[in-house]
């Protein structure tokens, strides 16, 4: 039994207009060990975000089950904290009170949550922006608020749904460095969804490669690059080999979603 167990999970739903059954995920099984950083890559629309929503219990599986530390997850809770691609900050709250949101819902006392919020805001490097509102911050800063908010409830698992997908390439690379720096401190269990292969390899202990719709796991690749990693690791031959291997697996899947045949060479 792993820390987080996804057991034979399928997700089907009816499309609103055509009312036809749509299979988003098919027989997905995945075990994540405590302290492991797992990334999930796949073509868009492969249901990788749905997988994360299922773990968060914001969606419920059609069949199969999800267990965290042996207990089946049935409802959202602060043992799993999410970081969203669109940040999902509350625009009427400043940085401090956005970070406090999760702790408020968890029932942490005002004094404790103020202190904890300040600690996590400092950790993501936003100490001077506590009183700023989301619309006064850049995208990268907003997502650091999202990360601080998620960490502040001290979850067992951090669920990150393409968290850097809305950021431009340079910021994105630096955010990944930042995430590893934070993760190295307490090695929280992380499930990280992305469609960026470099990001997936750079961060991961293990990369899960998913097929085009319906989403299935087609390969699990262990990344044996030394830690702590800096950005230069992306220029090593080992990194290139992982990149090549994953792109090989994904290319066919992406082509199938686009109905493009492989180019004859």
């Amino acid at each position, binding site marked *: 039994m792993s820390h987080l167990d996804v057991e034979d999970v399928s997700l089907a739903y009816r499309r609103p207009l055509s009312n036809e059954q749509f299979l988003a995920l098919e027989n997905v099984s995945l075990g994540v060990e405590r302290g492991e950083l797992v990334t999930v890559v796949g073509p868009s629309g492969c249901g990788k975000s749905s997988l994360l929503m299922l773990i968060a219990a914001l969606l419920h599986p059609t069949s199969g089950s999800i267990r965290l530390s042996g207990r089946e997850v049935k409802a*959202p809770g602060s043992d799993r904290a*999410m970081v969203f691609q669109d940040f*999902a*900050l509350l*625009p*009427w709250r400043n940085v401090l009170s956005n970070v406090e*949101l*999760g702790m408020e819902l*968890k029932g942490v006392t005002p004094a404790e949550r103020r202190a904890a919020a300040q600690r996590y805001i400092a950790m993501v490097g936003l100490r001077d922006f506590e009183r700023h*509102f989301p619309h006064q911050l850049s995208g990268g800063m907003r997502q650091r608020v999202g990360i601080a908010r998620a960490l502040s409830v001290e979850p067992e698992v951090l669920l990150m749904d393409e968290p850097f997908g809305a950021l431009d390439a340079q910021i994105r690379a630096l955010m990944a460095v930042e995430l590893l720096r934070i993760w190295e401190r307490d090695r929280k269990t992380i499930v990280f969804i992305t469609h960026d292969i470099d990001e997936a390899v750079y961060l991961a202990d293990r990369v899960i490669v998913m097929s085009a719709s319906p989403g299935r796991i087609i390969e699990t690749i262990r990344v044996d690059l030394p830690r702590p990693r800096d950005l230069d690791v992306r220029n090593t031959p080992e990194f290139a080999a992982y990149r090549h291997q994953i792109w090989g697996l994904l290319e066919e899947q992406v082509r199938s979603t686009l109905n493009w045949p492989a180019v004859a060479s």
Partner: protein
Amino acid sequence: MASRRLVVGSLSVVVFLALWQIVGSTNLIRSDLISYPSEVVATMAKMASTGELGSNAWVSLNEFFVGFVPAVIFGIVAGIALALVRRLRLLLDPLLIAIYQAPIIAFIPILVVWFGVGTTSKIVMVFISAFFPVMINTMTGVAQVAEPWTRAVRSFGANTLQVVSKAILPGSLPAIMAGMRLGVGRAVVVLIAGEMYVSVMGIGRLVQVYSSAARASEIVVLVVVISTFGFACVSFLRWLENRIGPWRQELEQ
């Protein structure tokens, strides 16, 4: 630029007051019909010093706030409930829209029959006038609450009440405030009309009394008092809106 606009804008007001003063005080047009500014000011001072203005304004203010505050509270609760519970909305929407569209002034006589000539009927009139715009705007506001806000709150395990208090209510507050501003305008009109129709005391009652006596200056004083009150309420709500809602800029971008 802003100060220049203020100067140019107040120019028309100053010119208007000056012309009115000249035309009225020289009896170019009969001053008992149109009065003139200096006489209006004198009349206002007289009405204030006898306590006539204060005691009647107090009655009207009471009627207004006793009707308005519950209208806002019930309007918000009803608006959120209707927005969230689809079946309730399907059931009640046609009825509520019909009542909202109906001119409340037409109901004044029957409300007086039901609730008497005193303050109760006026309180009910204010309540009805303000309730519907607040409720309808709250519904609109809830519909505009962005999905990421509720998703964020739900992801931390919030129950329905917490989703409402942490995401839906603050997220629809700007629309609710707009509904309150609309409600102030309607409630003031209906309150004055109701008092003019039949009442014991109140600003509308004074309007009615001085109209039958064809006393222009007193009526102008009362109109100034009424519009000052409405203007103050709306300005206060706008100020409040700007204080709580700088985040709306982000959504408008």
